[in-house]
């Protein structure tokens, strides 16, 4: 009997300690909420692999200001994000390409109303191995590489070696943007909407993989957002037509419009954003948010 009583007492004290701990924790929580912005909720961002590094920085900074808001960012590709927006499984879709009219139709039939916000700009860079002697190409030449019409660097004035053309898979907004603006040469007199990626182009599941392949393979060529261009690869200067001057990708050339393949980075929401989502997007567009754009290697929006 005595032993049993002792046991019960011990249980009681453990339970008391737990209860006390719980009360203290709860008090701590409620104490903290008093000082923040009062926003709460969780935001899901799905989409572009290109925009992911930027969204992650924004999400981290925003969560420091508003600790009750949870933001989850994932970057399987713009197409995935847009599909998720249409299927109603994400709050914000981040995209490196504009939504297509057929996607808008699909969204409308599911009662989703895509609302577009440009959050930054990107100079889509074409990169080669630093050992490659080629330093500038025209858009038509790059198109010929990616349609497998030019297969040797010799044909472009380089050394006699086969070209290993690499791109992103069809989940990627960069895949689609590059197809329209480089492979099919949109906006050029030579535009041909029937052109497709050649069947020998390697379509890779992530931008990181492509950049690391180019860094290790002297014959490879790949395309990536400006933020992914580091010292291990060499960005090419791009000529819109053979008579134009070659322009290297940078924040400056993307902003003044001289770099020919710059593109908007976009957020899509279902209708005008409200509440915590609106607060987050407002932060992204604020001067502090745009400061992070430059730090992440992208191009901030032009100041109004």
């Amino acid at each position, binding site marked *: 009997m005595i032993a049993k009583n002792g046991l019960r007492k011990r249980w009681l004290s453990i339970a008391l300690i737990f209860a006390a701990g719980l009360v203290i924790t709860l008090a701590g929580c409620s104490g903290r909420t008093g000082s923040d912005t009062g926003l709460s909720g969780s935001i899901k961002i799905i989409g572009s692999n290109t925009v992911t590094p930027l969204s992650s920085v924004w999400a981290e900074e925003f969560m420091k200001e508003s600790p009750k808001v949870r933001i989850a960012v994932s970057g399987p590709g713009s197409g995935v994000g847009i599909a998720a927006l*249409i299927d109603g499984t994400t709050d914000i879709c981040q995209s490196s390409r504009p939504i297509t009219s057929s996607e808008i139709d699909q969204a409308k039939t599911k009662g989703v109303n895509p609302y577009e916000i440009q959050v930054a700009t990107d100079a889509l860079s074409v990169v080669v191995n630093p050992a490659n002697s080629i330093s500038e190409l025209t858009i038509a030449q790059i198109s010929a590489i990616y349609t497998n019409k030019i297969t040797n660097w010799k044909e472009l004035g380089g050394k006699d070696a086969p070209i290993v053309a690499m791109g992103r898979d069809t989940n990627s907004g960069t895949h689609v943007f590059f197809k329209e603006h480089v492979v099919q040469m949109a906006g050029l007199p030579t535009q041909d909407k029937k052109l497709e990626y050649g069947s020998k182009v390697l379509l890779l599941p992530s931008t990181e993989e492509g950049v690391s392949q180019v860094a290790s393979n002297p014959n490879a060529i790949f395309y990536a957002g400006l933020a992914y261009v580091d010292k291990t690869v060499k960005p090419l200067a791009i000529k819109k037509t053979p008579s134009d001057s070659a322009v290297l990708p940078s924040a400056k050339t993307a902003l003044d419009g001289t770099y020919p393949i710059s593109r908007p980075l976009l957020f899509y929401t279902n209708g005008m954003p409200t509440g915590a989502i609106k607060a987050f997007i407002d932060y992204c567009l604020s001067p502090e948010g745009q400061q992070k754009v430059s730090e992440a290697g992208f191009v901030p929006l032009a100041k109004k």
Partner: protein
Amino acid sequence: MLETVTPIAARAGLEKSLRRRLRLGERFIEGWVFLSGLLAIVVLLGIVAILLKEGLPIFGYTPPWEFLFGTKWYPISEPPTFGIMPFFVATLMITLLATAIAVPIGVGCAAYLAEVASSKVRETVKPIIEILAGIPSVMMGFIGLILLSPLVQSIFHLNTGLCGLTASIMLSLMSLPIIVSVSEDALHAVPNEFKEASYALGVTKWETIRHVCIPAALSGITAAIMLGVGRAIGETMTVLMVAGGALAVPVSPTDPMTTMTAAIASGIGNAVRGGLQYQALFAIGLILFIMTLAVNLVAERVLERQKRKFAG
């Protein structure tokens, strides 16, 4: 199963209530086991039904023969084109090559462990090989990307190390533990009398393994190989990372290629539910399902024949 109830019922002197309670418990367990068995069938039928429902409508847009034998896959173009020949050939090529690499090594390793190695070596090595089976496929993909692909590129003087061969080698490493473990069990189960009879005839160890142990354990070894093939056909992450992802119909294993699983994985994300691309990817899934079913049926046939041979 029902038989277990009778001794309880037969036991005299038990209180009625206790008996009823036991019978109730028995009933409950029986029902539960029956439901679990049913669930497996329901899930399988459900998967088949979904594959058919989501996949078949694509054949209204692309006729089946064009879908199977078409060589162009442009799912996001206007209008889209769906031809899965490149993926089909790539899956066959990578699976066959992976099996060709894994089987001799796997069966050899199993024969060594079962017949040659001392029991101490066997008890240390076998669990280590089984740990290999637990390595997540994304890690195997990383290893292929960082270690194997540069090696393959320099040995075969290729333009890129991301190719079917690299994927096959990684897949053979992944199916190896299954093949070793299951064939070792089969070889271990061969009755000692068989071997003793063989040794009594003055036959060497190698000849015993080759002409007695392996034929006697062949049904188990076949099952092991089929499990390995199943693993190789269905593997996705590793091939997505190292096979190269080109859309051409592969001619040689050293070409970059996309398997059926990789095609599904790299497209399903941006496929809107019910859209053409979504249906096409489900149709690939359906064909993949039929392929694995065929592998299993062939395996069953082989096993049956083997059993008959031994019985007769």
